[in-house]
């Protein structure tokens, strides 16, 4: 592993020429350039803000202000990884609906995008690996039932989205609970500096969503419901929130009955309104943890971006 390659691990790489020019252009993502790309989503009172340029941002890398170039994420091909919790009762109509939804999600992607589906229950497995969006997807391998290896799935996705020279959007549909993984939530959060994925977690209330959860009761460790109808133990929200915040994503609490497809559409649109800020780090050591702070010159705006990256050693 070369030092040059190590520099590329935590973040998406962009053309040095693009970054250095300061021009607003679609960056060329390639693994050989030594640059940093930070994905940024900007909101004004929950509404996405579009049309910004590099003049609207201030970015510091380990406290040192950097010269950035800006491009819209709408124009950049991306990889979408869908993590689907199939540990509940996803049989019959619910399973058919899942397959329909995933195919429809695929149809919402743009030419040049790629999509992958990873399902998790007792085990974590690729239903299909990265493939060009738009085609008919091989969805027959989706099956349901069993216990939940959420953290194993998240760790797998973090590893699989490291060192790849395209924007990585990871959408996980889950109730947020894990009953089987060895890795814990802290471990998952500790891996975020090394991955390029932006994680969006969609949390379903397992007792209110139609496709879950009766078969969890057959799990090896059993399940206990509290008197008010929800699980005695809830998701580790603080850790899950840390995961999404540190990767520039978001935690979405799924209202009862809201279709997965609708949520996907919403979150994909949110991601697409974002920007890629690219820069060649200057005035900072390459190695170790780099804290990245992005601010808007308009104080009314809120900014979501990953909080840093590991620069290698």
């Amino acid at each position, binding site marked *: 592993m070369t030092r040059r390659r190590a520099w590329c691990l935590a973040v998406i790489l962009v053309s040095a020429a693009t970054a250095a020019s300061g021009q607003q252009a679609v960056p060329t993502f390639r693994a050989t350039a030594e640059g940093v790309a930070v994905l940024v989503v900007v909101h004004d009172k929950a509404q996405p803000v579009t049309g910004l340029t590099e003049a609207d941002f201030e970015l510091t890398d380990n406290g040192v202000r950097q010269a950035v170039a800006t491009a819209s994420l709408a124009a950049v091909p991306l990889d979408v990884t869908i993590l689907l919790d199939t540990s509940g009762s996803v049989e019959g109509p619910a399973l058919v609906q899942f397959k329909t939804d995933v195919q429809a999600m695929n149809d919402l992607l743009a030419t040049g995008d790629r999509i992958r589906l990873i399902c998790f229950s007792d085990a974590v497995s690729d239903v299909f690996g990265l493939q060009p969006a738009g085609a008919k997807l091989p969805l027959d391998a989706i099956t349901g039932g069993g216990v939940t290896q*959420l953290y194993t799935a998240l760790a797998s996705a973090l590893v699989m989205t490291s060192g790849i020279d395209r924007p990585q959007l990871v959408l996980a549909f889950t109730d947020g609970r*894990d009953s089987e993984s060895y*890795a814990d939530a802290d471990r998952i959060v500790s891996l975020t500096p090394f991955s390029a994925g932006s994680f969006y977690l969609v949390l379903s209330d397992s007792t209110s969503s139609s496709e879950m959860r009766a078969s969890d009761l057959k799990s*090896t460790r*059993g399940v206990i419901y509290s008197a008010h109808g929800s699980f005695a133990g809830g998701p580790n929200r603080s850790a899950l929130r840390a995961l999404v915040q540190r990767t520039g994503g978001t935690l979405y609490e799924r209202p009862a009955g809201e279709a997965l497809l609708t949520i996907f559409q919403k979150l994909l649109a949110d991601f697409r309104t974002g920007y890629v800020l690219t820069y060649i780090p200057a005035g900072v050591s390459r190695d170790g943890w780099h804290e990245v702070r992005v601010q808007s010159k308009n104080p009314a705006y809120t900014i979501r971006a990953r909080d840093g990256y590991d620069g290698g050693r």
Partner: protein
Amino acid sequence: MSTLADRIGRGAARRQTGLAAVLAVGVALGSLGADLVRGASLDSSIRLDSQSPPGAPPSRVFPNLDKVLDAYEAHPGSVAAPAAQLRAILEGLKLVAPGWIGAAGEAAVPRRRLAVATFVVEVLLGQSDSVLWRKNQPAQALLEWACSLLRKEPLPPPSDVGEHLWFIATIALMERSGGSSASPGSSQSISTASGAVPDTGAYGAADTTVSQMLQYHLEDAESRVPDEPRWAIVQGLVEELRSWPEWRDEVALSAQPIPAAATMVAYEQALGRPEVRQEALVRLGEFELRLGLTAKALDYFNQAGAPTDPYVLYWLKLFEGDALERSNRPTEAIAAYRVALQMAPFAQTATVALGSALMTQHRAEEGATLVGDMLRMPARPDPWTSYTFPDWRYFPDALAKLRKAVAK
């Protein structure tokens, strides 16, 4: 180095006491008994379905179980029984079993008593819902009844391994159902896949968790088969399960009033049994790791040496890798994970641990290749998933031998 599957027979051959006396074949990795469970529901030789007409309440007493026992004795094999029928099966067995056991003459009584108890194991095999195994719930009641049936016999001589096998099998079943305990002090109504279980108001109080039921059953096992070294591990497990979270990191371990001392004492006592000493050391280390005491954990792992039991070696190297990573010794951690994977290639827990460790060491491509290969292939057996029911690895052989022992 050979794989876990390769080493099964050799590892078993080295055990000379306790289990070795009754399980000559030893552990089988396979799918950790999943095939047996699946068989109980899909390909069962006997199916105990509801006899009630549609819409009618289920019968309180399952009919004709003497005929079912005849069939089972002739061809012992899996039995499919829905959870909703367990009470009726218990009542049916209470009614017919005493007569059936004696009907073939005095000489057949011990075998037939074991046959009925083994039939109960077959019925319980598919019942992994922990709720069913709590105090006064159907699975626990059925097991307790079968156990009392065996206890009517004089203590078996060491040469009679049937009861020994039965206790190994039933301890394994209880462990598997009870990887967690109810939250202390909570007031809960409990539902099952087969419908609501009446809230007796007792849940959350003492003596209701599966680990407590396991404790009671262990006492019976110790009284009937006193020299089995596995019981020392089970005693530690009984204590440890009380601190095992229902959901991963649902409650920080340090925030729980856990019975740490009891767990440590139980596993330390197991250190005195050479047959289970290495597993006890691994479990002590894992417990220290959960408490955040990494240095102590590593000390136990070092003492464990090189276990010959492939499950124990996998657990050891997985936990050791974790402890080494936490101690900022990533190169050694990666080496430990690799040893675990040599035992169980592409076991998901160790694969993801190794892939993650490689990523943090700026070897993302190597990590992604490893995890990608794992994701593309059918899931391989992962010994981690049986860590809280460690005797499950003996279950398939125990049941196979029981079936032979009870066949007419």
